[in-house]
């Protein structure tokens, strides 16, 4: 790792004021530190966000769930309050990486990073979440803009995510056997009359909503409604792990399992 200056921020405003030039925010470090070791990132300064009280915590008021950006995967996985209204999100968080990664990694870091195989982006998109930053509120549909790309501007800090728990939600991923990242993961939501299905790990430009899956489930929110669906392979990733055709089939299979698992 190249040499770097470490700064600890005490508040969101303090962090923003420290962010100058090549500085990078450091949350759980589960992505940034490995990337720095590989010299794929070489910030001159890192600003530690993990000691900022206002970024922490989970609030559930009725069906409205707000999760601070600095909340760890382990905290989301174990939250009884979230489990009561949206158990699919706890299930998702409990399958990120391994226990040690979940003790450090945060929801804010995961969505700011927007890895095309990360789990949370699928949940944010399907839950139609709102991403709050120190400057504005961004709908999830506008937030994830490409591979490792988001709508965040230079120095902008994710402070929290908010969503209204839907009637039913389910998530299922086919984990890469080595990394546990999603080789394809599908988050399905039934919300009033509308259905949303977001796919991670498969799209060439990152997380996306599958119209084919959504249309089929709009008629009947049951796994069998997907029997006759064909998911096109256009725009899906082909790599050493799986071809685009294989991923297209995985989208359908994971969607079926996610619907089977979906609960309110």
């Amino acid at each position, binding site marked *: *790792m*190249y*040499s*770097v*200056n*470490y700064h*600890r921020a005490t508040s969101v405003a303090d962090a923003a004021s420290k962010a100058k030039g090549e500085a990078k925010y*450091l949350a759980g*470090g*589960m992505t940034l*530190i*490995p990337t*720095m*070791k590989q010299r794929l990132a070489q910030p001159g300064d*890192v600003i*530690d966000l*993990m000691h900022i009280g206002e970024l922490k915590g989970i609030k559930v008021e009725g069906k409205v769930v707000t999760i601070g950006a600095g909340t760890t995967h*382990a905290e989301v996985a174990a939250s009884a309050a979230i489990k009561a209204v949206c158990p699919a999100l706890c299930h998702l968080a409990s399958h990120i*990486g*391994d*226990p*040690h*990664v979940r*003790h*450090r990694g945060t929801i804010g870091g995961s969505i700011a990073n927007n890895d095309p195989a990360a789990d949370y982006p699928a949940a944010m998109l399907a839950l139609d979440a709102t991403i709050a930053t120190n400057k504005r509120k961004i709908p999830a549909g506008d937030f994830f803009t490409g591979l490792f790309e988001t709508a965040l501007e230079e120095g902008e800090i994710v402070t929290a995510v908010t969503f209204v728990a839907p009637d039913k939600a389910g998530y299922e991923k086919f984990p890469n056997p080595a990394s*546990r990242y999603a080789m394809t993961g599908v988050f399905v939501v039934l919300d009033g009359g509308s259905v949303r299905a977001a796919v991670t790990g498969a799209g060439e430009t990152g997380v996306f909503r599958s119209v084919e899956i959504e249309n089929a489930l709009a008629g009947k929110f049951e796994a069998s409604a997907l029997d006759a669906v064909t998911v096109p392979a256009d725009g899906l990733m082909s790599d050493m792990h799986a071809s685009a055709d294989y991923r297209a089939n995985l989208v359908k299979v994971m969607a079926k399992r996610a619907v089977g698992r979906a609960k309110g």
Partner: protein
Amino acid sequence: MASVSMTVNGRAVSGEVEGRTLLVHYLREHLGLTGTHVGCDTSQCGACVVHVDGKAVKSCTMLAAQASGSTIVTIEGLADGADLHPVQAAFKENHGLQCGFCTPGMIMAATDMIRRHPEGLDEKTVRAELEGNICRCTGYHNIVKAILAASEAMAKGGKAKAA
């Protein structure tokens, strides 16, 4: 440079480190606590697992400066004098190690796992929970046996909380 101070195995320590110094290097090279191993240095293997404020973390993926102010327990801090911690005793009893390289991380992961599952453990849960720990000698069978035995012994001894 960054000033760090933390409590490691009950002892208050402080010093100056480079910003890029990893927690595992601080423990091994500054404090001489070489029981914590570096297996992969790419956040995969879990040989470097220690407890930071009571939670298992990969110390190769955390800066020493991030841990400043925290309470750290390493493999050296588990035994009570000459008395092995129940998880260490179970690894010895069940031959839960071959070359021993992964063992410190396995034991730190196991004590954390047992703490998080006061309801008890079964084989499936232990195997899933070991996702972040790799044994190059592939001795998983006895590692799982040792963790199950330790979990039972600690439940009987009412020690699950003390780990």
